[in-house]
């Protein structure tokens, strides 16, 4: 899951980034409104965490810019401004959730998880496809018989993206983008390695390969 963290307080962003990464997000950071506007439009993010008080362009302007260009990714506003007038302004501009600082990391992660599921049309608190269920807190795969399988960070991120988009053709580039952050080398064939590992854990038929096109998750 690729996540854009737009936050001008670098101390907070520094600390938040590893927490988000541990939770399985590939995190890019923007520290001002202009960069955020550009990145949000040009990159395919699954989630955006947006501060409102930004240099150059305000968070609301950035958000309106994205929505104006037809970007529909879920956006969570993370701000110290906590009046209802400001909340209404942010939500009207197109935000999907609103969290006020100071926040607890678990609160943020729970909200992000809910946003992600919602964006993929799942209201259920857990991601499940056919016989497989993903325990996001423990980053484990739960099989139909209740047995659990440990997943590494990258495996978890890749599987989550697969399970959020079941039956869809996902290109290697797209998978790379959503599993790794911006600075990752997109040409590497690491995705193939991780797909193989997932097949070892889930079974051969769980992930179908379309030669030259990409993968489809079957579950």
């Amino acid at each position, binding site marked *: 899951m690729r996540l854009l963290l737009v936050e001008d307080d670098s101390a907070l962003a520094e*600390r938040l980034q590893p927490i988000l990464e541990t939770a399985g997000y590939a995190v890019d950071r923007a520290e001002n409104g202009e960069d955020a506007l550009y990145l949000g439009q040009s990159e395919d993010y699954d989630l955006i965490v947006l501060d409102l008080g930004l240099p150059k362009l305000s968070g609301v302007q950035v958000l309106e810019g994205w929505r104006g260009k037809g970007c529909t990714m879920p956006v969570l506003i993370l701000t*110290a401004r906590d009046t*209802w*007038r400001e909340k*209404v302004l942010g939500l*009207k501009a197109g935000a999907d959730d609103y969290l006020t600082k100071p*926040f607890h990391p678990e609160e943020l992660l729970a909200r992000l998880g809910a946003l992600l599921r919602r964006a993929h049309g799942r209201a259920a608190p857990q991601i499940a496809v056919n016989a497989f269920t993903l325990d996001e807190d423990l980053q484990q795969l739960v099989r139909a018989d209740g047995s659990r399988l440990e997943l590494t960070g990258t495996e978890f991120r890749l599987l989550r993206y697969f399970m959020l988009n079941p039956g869809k053709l996902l290109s290697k580039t797209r998978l790379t983008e959503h599993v790794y952050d911006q600075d990752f080398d997109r040409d590497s064939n690491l995705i193939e390695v991780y797909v193989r590992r997932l097949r070892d854990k889930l079974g051969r038929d769980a992930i179908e390969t379309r030669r030259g096109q990409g993968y489809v998750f079957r579950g």
Partner: protein
Amino acid sequence: MSSAAEPRPGSLERSLQWTLGVLVLVVLMSLTGAALWIGRQGAEQFVASRLTHDAEALIAGIAPDRGEIDRPLPPVYRQPFSGHYFVIRFDDGRSLRSRSLWDHPLEIGPLIPGKTAVELRDGPHGQRLLLWSAGYEKQGLAFTVAIAEDLTPLLRALRQLLWVGVGLSIFGAMTLLFVQRWLLRRGFRQIDEVRSDIRRLDAREIDRLRENVPEEVRPLVRELNQFIDAWKAHLARSRHALGNLAHALKSPLNLILLHHPRVEDDPVAEQALRMRELIGRELRRARLAGDHSPGRRFSPREDIGDLVAGIGTLYAEKDLQISTDIQAPERLGLDQEDMLELIGNLLDNAAKWARRRVRLSLHATGSLRILVEDDGPGVDPKAAKALSERGSRLDERTPGHGLGLSIVEEIVRLHDGRLGFGSSEQLRGLAVTVDLPGSETDP
């Protein structure tokens, strides 16, 4: 009199009335006295000079050797008690008296020839006589002539003049006092405007006193305005400092929370969360106590529409049905920010507890009534009653959650309204009622 000497701080008007009243009375009385004195002096001199002339005519007619007057005298000297009398006393003991004296003895002392005297005497029948006498010598015989005239009619006229004067003085004084009182009241009415300005200032309808007041009061109003400005600046500085401090605390607090991700059994995280709530509450309180004069007005339909949409987004996974029933004009004379905060927190609280449904009704007919219901667990009637009675314990309802309602309570109190809790008849959950007194429609 003493109250004129030391003006009571109690009433400017009374002390001014006393001072002016006494002063006017003294001046007018003195003028009357002076007029009387001058009038009487003039009258006496006039009478005395006439008497002198009469005396000269009399003396011309005297034949001292015979002790007679050989000329006819004016009839007033023959008519008894006519008020015009004379006595002539010869040195050899003889004397001549006018017939008008009748039996009234008018004794006079001898005067050396060439000497004159004027005196006041009691005459017959209560008359007051002005007696002019002089010593003469004619044909070797010395005699004294005294001639008198009754002053009573003159004195009566003067007394009348005195009463008219006193009357006019009192009337003049009263008129002056009345006019002064009217002027004072008119002046004080303009001070009343200052007072009503101060009341409006207190109600935050205006932020300064108007300075188009009488010149005498203007310095006071200016001083007050300067004081108000200084006070506002001071308040703004403290509020600003408080806001800055609170906002500045948010970042380190956030970092503490990020370093202590587990709330259970971690007192640091627990206290950090507590601090977060305290900061939030104080910031809101500071904002509520802030400047309300230029605030935007509340538009029930539009603003509630935005709030409902916002709450719907925030609780998207609950798939809430929020229905509204708004009967109100386009705009209400209430601060938009306050009402957003009030209704936003009520809706947020309802959405948190609701299973599926939330209802909001707002009726603005004279006073404003807001009812927010949900189909959540609600509170039992006893607890609802307790909540309504002592809203201050709202924070204890659920930790970390009651905050919203304590802000509701503060806004309601700020607007002199009432907050009530009960059970929703239709939705079976909590019903919160807010009544705010008359809020005029914005023109």
